[in-house]
């Protein structure tokens, strides 16, 4: 420690002698403008800040792009979800010939509709009953009406506000399958679900 202090002292002394000796021949170098260093520094700083700003802008742009991408992705995801919900909601239920009783297997389809309606309080739907071509044309309007009403009663009895569900009947006027066989008839004896309002963005139940 002591040796280091001595050395430092010695160094200072030499420096003082040297400073005193350099007075005469050389005038001190003129100051370079206001301050060359400061200008350079400022330039550098400016360049740095510009670069930084650029980087920041790039970063922001990147972030923005990412954000946009994320938003688009999430919108797409939401859209996909809406489509999925719509598909689920649009699943038809079917009936036996001249019957308007909900089949055991179709209750699960109606349960899905209950869940969707509960998850999307703004959603309003119309249930329409359809028939096959075998019955009487006009009687089928009454039968289709009973089929639509049967599904509505199921939904209402599972907690959905009756005001959110309209019913309609098209009798045998709108067949899905124009065939004249049991396969076609079975397809045509159905309830369809149509969205009346609140179907733009649907949540998964």
């Amino acid at each position, binding site marked *: 420690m002591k040796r280091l202090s001595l050395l430092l002292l010695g160094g200072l002394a030499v420096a003082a002698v040297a400073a005193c000796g350099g007075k005469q021949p050389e005038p001190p170098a003129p100051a370079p403008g206001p301050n060359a260093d400061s200008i350079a520094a400022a330039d550098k700083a400016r360049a740095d800040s510009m670069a930084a700003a650029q980087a920041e802008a790039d970063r922001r742009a990147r972030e923005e792009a990412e954000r946009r991408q994320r938003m688009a992705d999430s919108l797409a995801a939401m859209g996909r979800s809406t489509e999925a919900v719509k598909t689920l909601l649009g699943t038809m239920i079917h009936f036996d010939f*001249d019957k308007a009783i909900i089949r055991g297997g179709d209750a699960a389809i109606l349960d899905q509709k209950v869940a969707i309606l509960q998850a999307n309080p703004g959603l309003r739907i*119309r249930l*329409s009953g359809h028939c096959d071509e*075998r*019955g*009487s*044309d*006009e*009687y089928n*309007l*009454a*039968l289709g*009406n*009973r089929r639509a*009403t049967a599904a*509505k009663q199921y939904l209402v009895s599972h907690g959905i506000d009756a005001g959110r569900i*309209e*019913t*309609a*009947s*098209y009798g045998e*006027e709108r067949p899905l399958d124009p065939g004249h066989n049991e396969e076609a008839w079975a397809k045509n004896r159905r309830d369809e679900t149509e969205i009346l309002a609140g179907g733009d963005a649907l949540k998964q139940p």
Partner: protein
Amino acid sequence: MKAARRLDGWTARRAVVLAVLLTVYPSSRLVAQDTSAVDRGVRIGLTYRPGVRPGMVVLPGRGPVLDSVRAIVARDLDYSDRFELITLPGGDSLRATAMAPAARSPTPPTRGSGGAAAAAGLNYPLYQALGADFAVTLTSAPGDTQVVAVHDVAGGGVRREFRVHLPPLTDPGFRMAVHRLSDRALEAALGVGGIAATRVLYVMEGKVYAIDQDGADQRLVSSSDHAALSPAWATDGRRFAYMEFWEGHGRLFVQDVASGKRAGVATSGQALDFTPAFSPDGKTLAFSRATEEGTDLYTVNIKDGCCLQRLTVGRFYDNLSPTYSPDGQRLAFVSTRAGLPQIYAMAADGTDQQLLAPFDYGATGSSNAPEWSPDGQSVAFHRDVGGTLQVFVLDVRTRAVRQLTSVGRNEDPTWAPDSRHMAFVSDRSGYRQLWIIDLETGRIRPLLQKSGARLPAWSPRLPETASSTP
């Protein structure tokens, strides 16, 4: 006389005795009034031959449009199913050759100068030999007028003669004017109303069309974008009603035949209203309304557009398809109160509801689409027989039910104004189309050779002003 000479003496003596007895006691025969005995040599009127229809020949006319007129009239009279239509052998040329012997024969008794003209050149004996009891002649007279004469062939004279004004051939009302002529000729011959001047409404591809009963002049009458069903005539033939689908609802419309203008029924639009039926006085429309409570029958005053009245209350069953009796006192309708749809009737105010068409519970199939006949005696409907539909007729008085069809699927019968013809939908030819059946003779003919025509509604006899449209 020749026959008398061939008789042996004993028979001749008995005949003389009989003749003396008849001379002495002529009043006894008059008192007895035995109509089963036929008076020989005395002709009072037409001979009634059971099961045989009178023969009718429509003679070729002389005039610019008379070939068309004759063809339509002959077809109308044929389609009335009240005559055996006789075709002249050798076609129209026969008339010329027939003129010579007719001129030699003594002038037949005629009424009116026009009759004499019309009767000129008629060979009554020939037509009689061909089996004609009646002949119709058409003659052009000045001023677009046609003289129509209905001849009694056996009597050798004009039975009745009338003049009609026919619009030009190109006029849309031409055919209906000829149909009306046919009905007058039928009435002149037999004293009964015809069905020539009528049209049938029907539905095809969601639109309402009308067609003459002979299958001509098919026209679209409702051209809305909304699918239509169940057309029904007012009994005056000036209006008809039908139903259209509107956003899940069923709306009823009443359309004026002459103007083609239509109006929505005031109380209709918020529910599923269907199967309209006019009351005979034209003031009320009965219809079915489907709600979440089920389907029930209502009436509405269409004259004032008010006063909705509910006729049935069936929370667990449906009531639909009303049809008025012609006196307006009762309504037949379909109800599922016993399970499957069957035909019931009630007073027009909804009271006194009872079963109309008897059925065996658990055995008889669904019965639908009733229509009360214009004479009030029958109700036609269709019933499921072994998985397909057949047309039935119920006798309202005896409640006897008769199956009318058995070939293919047959449905939605509608009565002609004569209560003996009926239009219905049948797939007997391979596809569903409109057919007409005569209940008296069983004769059946296609009305329209087009697939998909259904729900026919036969008009009453159409009034003069409603002839051009639809």
